[in-house]
């Protein structure tokens, strides 16, 4: 596994692993959120598929393992679908917002959140997305998706949100 604090490794194995989109690992609460996360979506009409639970484009949050920046294999197809959408929609722009759970220091978590967003950007770029169409930022542990503590909550907070 790629340790995010260590020198960045290039995604190799995970690029070729398929699978369907997964809920956060070790988590029961994820089911209540499902694919309905709407963070950051603008008022304009959503692109086709964004609100269709059967479309991978409805999945716009990638969840990560503790202290990891590797994209879990189960999200590869989701990100490929986003890459195809962005690649075929010249006007599309996506902001990748990286987040962490609250464990660890705030400054290291800012760096870890950025590392997660960078990993997703690197994947999208490898899938042919133009540099001008994808931005990154990190909020570290400062903007948790869920308040509270415990693994179920932390799993929901270790994430990259794709914001179009």
């Amino acid at each position, binding site marked *: 596994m790629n*340790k*995010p*604090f*260590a*020198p*960045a490794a290039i995604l190799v194995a995970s690029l070729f692993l398929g699978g369907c989109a997964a809920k956060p690992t070790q988590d029961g609460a994820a089911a209540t*959120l499902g694919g*309905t*996360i*709407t*963070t950051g979506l603008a008022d304009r009409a959503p692109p086709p598929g964004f609100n269709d639970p059967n479309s991978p484009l409805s999945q716009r949050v990638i969840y990560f393992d503790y202290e990891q920046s590797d994209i879990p294999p189960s999200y590869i197809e989701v990100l490929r679908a986003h890459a195809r959408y962005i690649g075929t929609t010249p006007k599309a722009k996506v902001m990748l917002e990286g987040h962490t759970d*609250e*464990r*660890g*220091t*705030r*400054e*290291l978590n*800012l*760096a*870890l959140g*950025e*590392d997660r967003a*960078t990993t997703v950007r690197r994947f999208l770029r490898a899938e042919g997305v133009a540099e001008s169409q994808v931005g*990154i*930022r*990190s*909020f570290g542990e*400062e*903007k*948790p*998706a*869920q*308040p*509270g*503590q415990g693994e179920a909550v932390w799993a929901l907070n270790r994430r990259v949100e794709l914001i179009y």
Partner: protein
Amino acid sequence: MNIVPPAILRRSSSNPLVTMKIFLRFLFTILTSLVGTSQARLTIEIVGGQEGAQPIAVVPFGVEGGGVPPEDLANVIANDLARTGRFKPMPPQDMLTRPYAADQVDLRDWRLLAMDNLVVGQVRRRPDGYYEVDFALFDVYRGEQLANMSLPSSPADLRHTAHRIADIIYEQLTGTPGAFTSRLAYVTSEWGGDGQKVTLRVADSDGFNPQTIVSSKDPILSPAWSPDGRRLAYVSFENRQTAIFVQELASGRRDRVASHPGLNSSPAWSPDGGRLAMTLSRDGNPEIYILDLSTRALTRLTDSPGIDTEPAWSPDGQEIFFTSGRGGNPQIYRMPVTGGEATRVTFKHDYNGRPSLTPDGRSLVMVTRVNDQFRIALMDLTTGATRLLSRGGLDESPSFAPNGSMVIYATQYNGRGVLALVSTDGRVGQRLSQDLGEVREPAWSPLPR
């Protein structure tokens, strides 16, 4: 009044349950109207024992010509001394006599009560509206007067004058300068009708006189005092991007000193106040840079493919300590501020970060992970010996008192963010919390010059 908001109010959330949110906002409006404005003060609670604390009597101060002083100076002094864990002030109701001038003192009274030391004082009003605050400190057993001074004070500064007296007493009795006139910077997070409100505040070392430095709907973190105590550097997410600001406290004037693409974080002042070390990821991954504040020249210090962040200066200004992931997990390293080889400092445990040096440069405090618990640890830089100062859970952001006697850090209590203080000998602890909301990111000011 002590109203603790339900858990859901405490943190920002993108929970889609909009109706619930509206209800909670309504509920919150009621809570805030009960509690009042954002001038919420930190309240301090002493936790842990005070074994071996020296008994001292601080007699309630008198007023020349009779009456009660406008500020209970003796109480401020006694609380300052008690918070260090080294003194155990006598409750005023247990005092048999209440002298307030040196010539009224009969030390036999205080020997009977087994007091090591005695403080008496009085306030004299001057014709110009100012006060003179007289006080005397006695060694009860030796029968010696250790100090006898008179400090002028404006009516608004009486609390501050009490802190100065506590500083003098502390130094007389311990040989170490007191830190009671120093101040605390901290970040609070509260929920209001229009969402989360994050505020950078500065208060006296006892939590009184909180002042708002800057307020935002977006995160604020990493406050850092300039060595002269007149400015704060901090990281703000205004416009959803990190930027480092330097703000002058007296005027409120602020300057955005770093807003590069990527992260702008972890500002740390050089001891001479002329430079800021910081973390920027503008070159692709987080590295440490030094910004010269007068020329605005930016020098990159580190060059490693992993994360480098959380710079801290050695007190002599010659070295930068920082956290790096270059070895596979976060550890603390040191390197000359002029560049060169980085040397690893920490080896125990697989997560060590956020270093901060003691004023004498001999040890550092850091966040360390032990058995999945994040705890504050003190490390002797000569011997490498490490001691845990906090019980852990989610402890972070340690900052030394300017006299090196105590460490303040952020922790969780009953699921809520609070601050905690611990003496570096681990003997005494305190908890600082606000009635409402979370408190975090403490930074202890230097001693006023």
